[in-house]
């Protein structure tokens, strides 16, 4: 199989490159646009955090990368998703169909993925060990014994107690945290260069969440893969991400280094969200800052800047009519707001 490589080879320091990705879904009510022109890059070995509320399109975007979109999905005409797993070979993922051989060779091999619900994301009728070794055998053409040994190592690496015993355990015999560890072991089965984590700690208790985040951080340091970490929790992003992208209604409204996002947000949505979260040890105020209204449903996305009807700084003429461009700053920060950089400083 000769992999199809693109004429435009991605530079060595870009692992994944999304340009203008657009995903809509054909439903009986009409077409819903879930992702509307998302672009971002992931560099080898970095952790990109993607934050957003429900319906912001963060999960759909990564499913477009994995080519695991639902069957009623329509992708935008222009967008591209390019992946450069080893630094010298670029795959045009956006051209691959769901069941394409090339993407199958990448999935579980160069790209690993972990999911929100550790309860249901593992097959209930197969043992942990057999699920992991099946992936190993699929991509590494190794024998059963080798794959099982590899599975055992992986379970040890994710710090599951008694890895030898765990190989033959079934998911329902493990606790939520242990299941998520097994899920991570499965995603790392073939040393991927990119790990996609879709809200992996949302269903877990706060103490377990902390353990899983610690584990992911140490594994990342050890194995050097890049991580796309999706969450709605700003605390989790602050803990794990190097860079952050904030999403709202299918668009990235702001990206930047984690410190810049948290200490010098440029987009009013980011600013307002950060201020509305009560946090530990903060000077107590009686009232929390809020964003007015609620997240619009995907069938009625406002015109112009989608945030204008909830924004305190919106200009009636400009923001309701014109979709703002992405404004870049010297520090690499970008914000999709007409007034980015001109708004009053409002951070923590």
């Amino acid at each position, binding site marked *: 199989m000769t992999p199809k490589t693109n004429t435009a080879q991605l530079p060595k320091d870009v692992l994944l490159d999304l340009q203008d990705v657009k995903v809509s879904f054909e439903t009986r009510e009409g077409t819903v646009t879930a992702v509307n022109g998302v672009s971002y890059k992931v560099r080898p070995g970095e952790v990109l955090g993607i934050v957003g509320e429900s319906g912001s399109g963060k999960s759909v975007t990564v499913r477009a990368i*994995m080519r*695991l979109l639902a069957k009623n999905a329509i992708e935008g005409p222009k967008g591209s998703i390019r992946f450069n797993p080893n630094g010298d070979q670029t795959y045009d993922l956006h051209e691959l169909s*769901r*069941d394409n051989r090339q993407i*199958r*060779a*990448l*999935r*579980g*091999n160069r*790209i*690993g*993925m972990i*999911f*929100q*619900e550790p309860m*249901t*994301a*593992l*097959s*209930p*009728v*197969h*043992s942990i060990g057999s699920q992991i070794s*099946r*992936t190993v055998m*699929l*991509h590494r053409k190794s024998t059963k014994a080798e794959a099982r040994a590899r599975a055992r190592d992986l379970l040890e690496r994710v710090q599951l107690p008694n890895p030898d015993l765990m190989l033959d355990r*079934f998911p*329902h*015999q493990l606790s939520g945290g242990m299941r998520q560890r097994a*899920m991570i072991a*499965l*995603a790392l*089965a073939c040393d991927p260069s990119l790990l996609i984590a879709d809200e992996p700690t949302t269903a877990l208790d706060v103490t377990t969440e902390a353990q899983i985040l610690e584990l992911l951080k140490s594994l990342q340091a050890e194995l050097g893969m890049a991580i796309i970490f999706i969450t709605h929790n700003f605390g989790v992003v602050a803990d794990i991400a190097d860079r952050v992208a904030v999403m709202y209604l299918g668009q990235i409204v702001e990206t930047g280094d984690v410190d810049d996002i948290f200490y010098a947000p440029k987009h009013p949505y980011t600013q307002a969200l950060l201020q509305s979260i009560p946090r530990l040890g903060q000077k107590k105020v009686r009232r929390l800052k809020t964003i007015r209204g609620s997240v619009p449903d995907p069938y009625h996305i406002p015109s112009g800047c989608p945030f204008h009807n909830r924004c305190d700084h919106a200009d009636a003429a400009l923001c309701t009519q014109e979709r703002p461009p992405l404004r870049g700053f010297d520090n690499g920060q970008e914000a999709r707001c007409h007034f980015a950089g001109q708004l009053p400083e409002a951070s923590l």
Partner: protein
Amino acid sequence: MLSFILRRTLWAIPTLIVVSFISFLIIQLPPGDYATAYAAELRNGGDYITEAQEEAIRTQLGLNDPVLLQYGRWIGNILFHGDFGQSFHWNAPVSDLIWDRLALTLLLSTLSLVFTWIIAIPIGVYSAQRQYSFLDYLFTVFGFLGKGIPDFLLALVLMWISFIWLNLDVGGLMSPQFEGQPLTWAKFVNILSHIWIPIVVLATGGAAGLIRVMRANMLDELGKPYVETAYAQGLSERQVVWRYPVRVALNPFISTVGWALPALFSGDVITAVVLNLPTTGPLLLQALKMQDMYLAGSFILILSVFTVIGTLISDILLAWSDPRIRYA
């Protein structure tokens, strides 16, 4: 696992006792008893029998004893002597009448079950995977028809069609000239040319329902996160579907396999009557109509025992295939 099997097996025992008791009650239900019937038979034959003689027979056979005692005697004879009693109508021991018919019934049922599964599983999986496709609709229509057409009607129509268009006389399991003959190639071919109708009839009814079940199970399972996980490992669509959701969707199936066997036994009662098959069904029907109660009760007992054992087997199979049950 072993303790599970043991527990399930022990649990089957009280069920068997109750089932056998019910079978016995059915024997007892009709007014009159063996002695009455026997006396009536004798009188019809022109013999003279007094009330006192009839009563003597009754006492001799223990028919005046309490029901429980009679039940004990009946079940005791079956358990310890294999004696199911006497068929009044055939004037022969029940056990002589039952066994060879049971063998044929078993053959027919097993073949139909295998056939049912061979049809139902792939179609159910396909229908779920290609929901709302043309073939899915077609199978749905087939499923509804299969559910709506009574077995005996299907049997009648098939028989009629094959008679009119194929000019085959398809009643029975073989042509009359082969009956009682040793198995030869010709007889085998002849049986094959007969057996397909009952199998098609029995399998269509069963498959129609199972396709719906399999499709619904598969649709449930295909939406679950572990399927996405499997895709994310790089497995192809076929590998994902057959290794993961099908395994899980089959579990409710397995839980009915043991139960399907006796269901086919009883389902075949009606079909067998229509198609004039030498299986247990027609004999049971005849026994019931003649109120030949020892024969009928024994049949019901045996079928019930099959059902209980079938349920037991499917529970064990299910535990074997689904770790969630095994380790519960």
